[in-house]
């Protein structure tokens, strides 16, 4: 989906404002927003790809005027309503109106293990990788209505395969409940001039991770 969340190369957002290393949260609600987002994923049952899709699908003006933890909370509310776990009326009234649905809950005792384990995106696959390190490839010019992870600035561009990772879960499919459909994942490097034209910094290289279906040979 071509959303305002796909920010690479956009202009007009002003300077970057550095921040001290120990400034982890700016308000207590940010702490709770982080924790709620992580904890609700278990009863919610959605994938990380569905979460990202929900965030980037917020109304564009709202996305750009919300802080990132606010984006998380707004997307979490949508996911909860979408999954039927919370009613829109409950969010509007800001209180529970009905009992919850039974299901898995993240116990405090399970948290360290869950965070330490993480969630690998690597999956077995039957095919061999189509591309090898050093191959020239061209990204496809695709404009999907659904979730995708090929940024707009890197579409239809020629680059070189820099790394071959394993076969990873395909976000385009997994975000929409259409299965993991793992694909080979590559790091592809592009000269700045290929992405941004002749005026680009001559010393600039940009790398992205690209799934095999994002790529064609040249």
């Amino acid at each position: 989906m071509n959303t305002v969340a796909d920010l690479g190369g956009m202009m007009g957002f002003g300077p970057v404002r550095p921040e001290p290393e120990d400034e982890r949260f700016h308000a207590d609600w940010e702490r709770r927003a982080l924790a709620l987002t992580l904890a609700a994923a278990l009863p919610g049952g959605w994938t990380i790809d569905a979460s990202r899709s929900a965030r980037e699908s917020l109304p564009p003006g709202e996305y750009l005027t919300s802080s990132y933890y606010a984006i998380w909370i707004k997307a979490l509310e949508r996911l909860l309503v979408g999954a039927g776990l919370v009613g829109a009326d409950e969010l509007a009234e800001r209180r529970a109106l009905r009992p919850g649905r039974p299901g898995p809950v993240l116990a405090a005792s399970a948290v360290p293990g869950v965070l330490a384990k993480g969630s690998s995106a690597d999956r077995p696959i039957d095919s061999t990788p189509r591309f090898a390190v050093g191959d020239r490839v061209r990204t496809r010019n695709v404009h999907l209505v659904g979730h995708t992870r090929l940024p707009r600035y890197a579409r239809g561009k020629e680059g070189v395969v820099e790394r071959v990772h394993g076969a990873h879960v395909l976000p385009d499919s997994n975000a929409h409940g259409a299965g993991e459909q793992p694909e080979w994942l590559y790091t592809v490097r592009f000269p700045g001039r290929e992405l941004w034209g002749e005026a680009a910094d001559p010393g600039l290289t940009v790398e992205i991770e690209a799934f095999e279906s994002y790529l064609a040979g040249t």
Partner: protein
Amino acid sequence: MDEKDMTLRVEALESILVEKGYVEPAALDVIIETYEKDVGPRNGAHVVARSWVDPAYRERLLTDATAAIAELGYGGRQGEHMVAVENTADEHHLVVCTLCSCYPWPVLGLPPTWYKSPAYRSRVVIDPRGVLADFGVTLPTDTRITVHDSTAEVRYLVVPRRPEGTDGWDEGSLAALVSRDSMIGTGLVEVPA
């Protein structure tokens, strides 16, 4: 954005989720404590300092960062597929997620606000020297810049250059020099004057 309303909104959401039995409040506290106290950029600084003092570890880090980082006890959520890239006199690395906020949590903790901001995400892939200037960093014009846009589940750790004048320093003293920003690529490591 209205901070007061966000406070009320998040409180309400928490109470709804708790009352409906989806969330255990104590679990929230453990999550917060983990990322506020345990998991942060000192982990990454440990990894970087080890790579500076131990050439064999450096080699393992650059070959299989996930495994090398696990050796020091770090790993898990948002660090499942790590790649370490090393700054040199010729090449400087920067990490971004233009699409959202992907960041190597086990080694750097939660991302700073600026890392998730449109200002950083939009500009660092097209004008990295302009972004570095916002951090007070100027690189020689002939230093090449490689920007890593984390568009999938691979996460990057920048190994900054070890500053001159630190020969013989031990790992702990070196780690204390390594800032979070230097491991994203928006800072350099320097010995305090």
